[in-house]
């Protein structure tokens, strides 16, 4: 059942680095993160990698496996041929700290810019009443484990560092949408999304949705409905597209 795999792992820091070759044992049922851990334990004790839960729940072990943004803990070795070279590199959009660990502080900065949930006036704790159908829309977005793979993948920032200032990225535009759809939130979020968080940059290529390990429909359910509400209905072709997407009837 065991075999030796050929891994190429990017090692280095902010100044320099390159892909290093490793031959490493793989056993039945293992995921890429298991192999990275085996490298740490047996060949490269100081190989830097983030991980926590190893079950796809915390969103720590994001990296690019053969160029594809993925959680290493949810990438099974059985999806690769035994003679395939597996290349593991850090997320490209964020500055490297060391090896597979990147500086993701951009995301925390953006998180602090989104105005928090504004509780409704005059509703005491314990008196919140909401229907399941109404909370489900925001609940989908709250499944987000903040792996930042969507932020890493979105070409608005992946290929254009300059846009990072004006664009919050799919994760935080989705956060704005989540608050906008919260049945009891008391703020107007739509203007914010467009003017402060750069919703207009998004041209709905759905790359974020494709890489989401939680299978959240970021583009269809969060970003497009937001766009629909903020842009001038007469001139935006997205309204047409948006109308094709099912919405809550009430």
């Amino acid at each position, binding site marked *: 059942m065991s075999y030796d795999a050929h891994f190429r792992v990017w090692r280095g*820091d902010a100044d320099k680095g390159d892909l290093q070759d490793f031959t490493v044992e793989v*056993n*039945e*049922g*293992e*995921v890429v993160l*298991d192999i990275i851990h085996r490298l*740490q*334990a*047996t060949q490269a*004790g*100081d*190989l*830097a*990698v*983030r*991980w*926590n*839960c*190893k*079950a*796809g*729940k*915390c*969103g*720590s072990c994001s990296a690019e496996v053969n160029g594809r943004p993925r959680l290493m803990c*949810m990438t*099974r070795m059985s999806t690769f041929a035994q003679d395939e070279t597996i290349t593991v590199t850090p997320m490209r959009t964020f500055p490297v*700290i*060391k*090896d597979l*660990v990147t*500086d*993701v502080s951009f995301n*925390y900065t953006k*998180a*602090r810019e989104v*105005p*928090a*949930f504004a*509780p409704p006036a005059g509703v005491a*704790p*314990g008196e*919140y*009443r*909401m*229907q*399941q159908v109404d*909370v489900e829309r*925001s*609940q989908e977005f*709250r*499944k*987000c*484990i*903040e792996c930042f793979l969507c932020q890493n993948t979105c070409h608005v920032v992946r290929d254009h560092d300059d846009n990072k200032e004006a664009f919050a990225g799919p994760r935080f535009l989705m956060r704005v949408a989540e*608050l906008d759809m*919260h049945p009891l*939130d008391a703020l107007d979020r739509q203007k914010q999304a467009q003017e402060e968080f750069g919703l207009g940059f998004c041209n709905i290529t759905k790359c974020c949705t494709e890489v989401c390990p939680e299978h959240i429909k970021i583009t269809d359910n969060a970003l497009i409905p937001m766009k629909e509400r903020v842009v001038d209905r007469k001139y935006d072709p997205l309204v047409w597209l948006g109308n094709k997407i099912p919405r809550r009837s009430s």
Partner: protein
Amino acid sequence: MTEFQRHEYDVVVIGAGGAGLRAAIAAREAGKRTAVICKSLFGKAHTVMAEGGIAASMGNVNARDNWEVHFRDTMRGGKFLNHYRMAELHAKEAPQRVWELETYGALFDRTKDGKISQRNFGGHEYPRLAHVGDRTGLELIRTLQQKIVSLQQDDGGDGKLRVFAECTITELLRDESGRISGAFGYYRENGNFVLFRAPAIVLATGGIGKSFKVTSNSWEYTGDGHALAMRAGSTLLNMEFVQFHPTGMVWPPSVKGILVTESVRGDGGVLRNSDGKRFMFNYVPDVFRKSYAETEDEADRWYTDPDHNKRPPELLPRDEVARAINSEIKAGRGSPHGGVFLDVSTRLPAAEILKRLPSMHHQFKELADVDITKEPMEIGPTCHYVMGGVEVDPDSAAANRVPGLFAAGEVAGGMHGSNRLGGNSLSDLLVFGRRAGVGAADYVAQLGGNYPVVHADQIESATASALAPFNASGGENPYAVHAELQQSMNDLVGLIRTADEMSEALKRLDELKVRVAKVSVEGDRQFNPGWHLALDLRNMLLVSECVARAALLREESRGGHTRDDYPTMQPEWRKKNLICSLADGGAVDVVEQPMTPMRGDLIGLFDRDELAKYMTDDELPAPAEESA
């Protein structure tokens, strides 16, 4: 002297899971300058792994529920070894703490009338767990994280409440009189050292599972807070009680131990052996006989008519279920990969499973090629939680013997007695996290700005200790030593224990102590996991010794401590806590300490017959009182 960064705060919270964040919110709301130290990135703490829900007797699904019922369930689950006052505060305050989360923006699943929905769970008499599908922990951590951000927005920056991510504390510092003066640690990113000068510290570091091989716990769970408290002169309570969750994944090997939520059983899932038999009916202990169904028919009726039927035995407290599964496997009635079967596929329609247990479906599909809507899961016990922890004052969460030190959440002991009920962890985090934050703020206020001083020699010695693994060239690989520690604890101080095996474990731990002191690491201080592990190992080793020594002393079986050589529960032992402290020279000292007797009004919440199963005759109320 090696350079270090310096910060000054009123309250420093070590740990950024549910308890730590709730403590920080409370300290900040009390006007204190507060720092939160997280070992990982902000929002990744082990709390995200919690699945089932938060226990709080809101009575939204069954109006008969109230704090007294919740208190009784908690004491029964802990086999009456719980600190009664903690169980009381917890049961009384949990609903407020859950409702408060809604004002922070949490979105729980709803009942038809728009209230927070509540689900059944092991040991809870009524549906009691507020939940969001099976990802309640994620909702809790994200909600508290966003509340922290919201407080920072109110402050116009992080001057009064700041999160220090990827930072590990290695030492607590005290002044000459023994009061807390600060904490010393390093940033993972660059290996630089940092001093937090603060008169109050809240430990909220979670558990110790990484000392065991098969565990549901993440890399962070290395018993840091337990070890920091001991080294600072405080005490640990009842460390022998370690919860082995009955349902961890068993296959493939790389995921062995990953948690399968108890909600699977709460929502109708059943346990079967290789003969296809629902074996839990054979394992209902006498103390629970009255509350659990005797036939499958009755058990199945309970899901729709709980008022007229008794509960399925699959919903016994976790210690009972874990032991039963272990017995079935040992008797040769296990599943192909050494577990038993947990089946929900024949119990609920596929669409309902996908709705209620989406992350379980995802986890098994992605990691084990098992579709839980079509086939049973294979599961077995996994090290999940430590009931033992820092000995604290129930009301203020102040740690024993060390002024300025507080502890809340899994790192604190007493609340759960010998076994924790599912769902009582998240509520524990909120109730005692808040109390610790308030307790720390009150303590600081009393000091009137007169803060204990940190001395240069303390920094020097903490620095030298942290750098030691770089200086020990040619020593052992920390990963290899860690694997041996985990194997020893798993094999010798696991679910079922004997005196011989634990004595052997202590011998091995002694040998490992020598080896851990000599591990060496390659590379430099920049984000170096080998170095981090070398430092964490010291904590794991100390905590493992506490577990093994206390477990060897307690000659009875109760909750999360099962002795093959002393298989029954002994009322005499219920009156005793085992207290670990660090003696001069680094030895672990364990002594018996009498348990604080339960208050009369709380004793009055139980039938005398039930109490008689747990208590000695002289502890029981006089029979006449009962009829009064």
